[in-house]
């Protein structure tokens, strides 16, 4: 119990330091922006007095350490600043976009994860067969094709050609199908390959041979005996995958004009709306951190060996 508690504390501490590091990286990046924030707000034709007032207002003339301290202090109070463009709170903009991203990301993750799991297990039972090679080639191709291109190809076939689904946008469930499918396909191959190799390795182990010799039916053998052990590393993978998922989400949202966080980040780049960009990225990084923390904690509970590592 003490070991578990120590493990938990170490993990939480690590997550907090990582988050601090992230804020520092973002702060440094935003401070080296070539575009002058004051000019971005007031426009290129603003007179020097207005610019000076804005600089003073934002505290752009203070030493960097003071600015970073102020930035952290605001973060602690849940203040990510205001948009240069609309003057709205960044947290508001994020809150507005988060549900769309959550819907897209979680649907794709759930569908991709379970289909990948299923395909991985089914094909692992037949190592060396045509299905085995098929999975290998399919996963290599699936992991190599660009997400944004896959999205466009799906739009072409199911949107233009067959006219089954809308070309983009959001709202109804049918809007979700193509973007979620795009992301899920990438996820599916990723998990299928991993589960395939892992379950394959487990199936060759002694305890499975024993179970088989004792007459455990094949389905129970694959899904209960082998899967349980093979799932432990998959759980870690799930945590790491959240970061990759955010990248996929950003591209997919752009292809389908899906009103989520990724789209918000990309739009704010072109509008030079640095607070929105930095806020969105920090928020996404925090999401990934929390996901990883949860996975780490679960892992500590599932697998006692980890706590002492």
């Amino acid at each position: 119990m003490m070991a578990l508690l120590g493990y938990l504390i170490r993990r939480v501490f690590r997550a907090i330091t990582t988050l601090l590091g992230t804020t520092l990286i973002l702060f440094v990046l935003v401070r080296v922006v070539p575009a002058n924030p004051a000019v971005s707000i007031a426009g290129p034709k603003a007179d020097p007095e207005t610019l000076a007032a804005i600089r003073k207002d934002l505290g752009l003339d203070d030493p960097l350490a003071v600015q970073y301290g102020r930035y952290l202090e605001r973060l602690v109070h849940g203040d990510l600043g205001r948009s240069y463009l609309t003057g709205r709170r960044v947290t508001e903009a994020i809150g507005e976009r988060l549900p769309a991203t959550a819907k897209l990301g979680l649907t794709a993750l759930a569908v991709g994860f379970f289909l990948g799991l299923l395909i991985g297990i089914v094909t692992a039972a037949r190592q060396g067969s045509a299905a085995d090679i098929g999975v290998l080639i399919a996963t290599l191709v699936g992991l190599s094709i660009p997400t944004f291109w896959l999205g466009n190809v799906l739009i072409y076939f199911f949107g233009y050609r067959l006219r089954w689904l809308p070309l983009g946008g959001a709202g109804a469930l049918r809007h979700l199908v193509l973007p979620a499918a795009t992301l899920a396909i990438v996820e599916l191959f990723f998990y299928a390959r991993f589960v395939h190799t892992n379950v394959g390795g487990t199936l060759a182990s002694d305890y499975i041979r024993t179970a088989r010799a004792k007459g455990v039916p094949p389905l129970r053998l694959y899904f209960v005996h082998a899967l349980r052990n093979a799932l432990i590393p998959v759980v870690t993978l799930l945590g790491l995958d959240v970061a990759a998922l955010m990248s996929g989400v950003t591209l997919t949202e752009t292809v389908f004009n899906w009103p989520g966080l990724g789209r918000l980040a990309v739009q704010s780049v072109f509008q030079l709306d640095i607070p929105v960009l930095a806020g969105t990225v920090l928020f996404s990084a925090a999401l990934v951190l929390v996901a990883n923390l949860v996975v780490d904690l679960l892992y500590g509970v599932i697998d006692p060996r980890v706590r002492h590592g």
Partner: protein
Amino acid sequence: MAEAALRGLGSRRRSRRLFAAGMILVGGLGLVAAAAPWLTSYDPDAIVVAHYAGPLPPGGAHPLGTDTLGRDVWARLAYGARTSLFVGGLAMALSLGIGVTVGLVGGYFGGAVDTALMWLVDLVLTMPTLLLLIVLAAVLPPSLLTIPLVIGVVGWTTFARTVRGEVLSLRERDYLLAARALGASHGRIMLRHLLPGVLPGVVVLAALGMSGAIGIDAGLSYLGLGVPLPTPSWGRMVSEVQTYFAVAPWLVVLPGVAVSLAVIGFNLVGYGLIDLLGERRG
């Protein structure tokens, strides 16, 4: 994340075949990039149709058609191969340099140095890569070097982790203890004794890093954050024409196929090498 999937392709015969297929793809890509001026007589940025009447379908004087501005698609793809290889190669080399250094130093010295470096690795690893790249690409002045630099600076973590792991397993070997006993300096031990031991793994990662960098570069270009215009890049070729997909599907399909083939090629080489090198060692 690549580490989780760092497994070979299965049987030896199969690995050799897939490795050969990867080498053919990569070789073909290199050939097209090197010989681009001889493979097409068109300037990739020039408008080559006399009277513009929409994109021309593949065939005749333009084997892969012309795009929405009346430029030759084959010329743009061939010169785009140069961009991809340049960006991918430079990014990978930079990642490799940073990653191998961090891995060697962290693994060899251990202790606080190692803890600090691995904390840095974790930090970069938990940042959503594409979003971090977007911020970097947005704040740095656009130039041909910006994108490879940015991808390289973000992508070194896998190199660092793998090299560190291998160094940890090599550190207590007798020949290293002997070198230390003879008074070899830290630098000499790392460069002369540890580096050769980790090289096979690094070669594998270099191939996989190349495929990753080419894929990320395509994604950034698609978002409009890639190498600046007018340099032809495959990702931008897709975003430029995607509204024309219904009337000119080849314009979207071809650059995507090019990216896919390049990424598949480097992946096959990398995964194939895992088996081929492992076979020789084991």
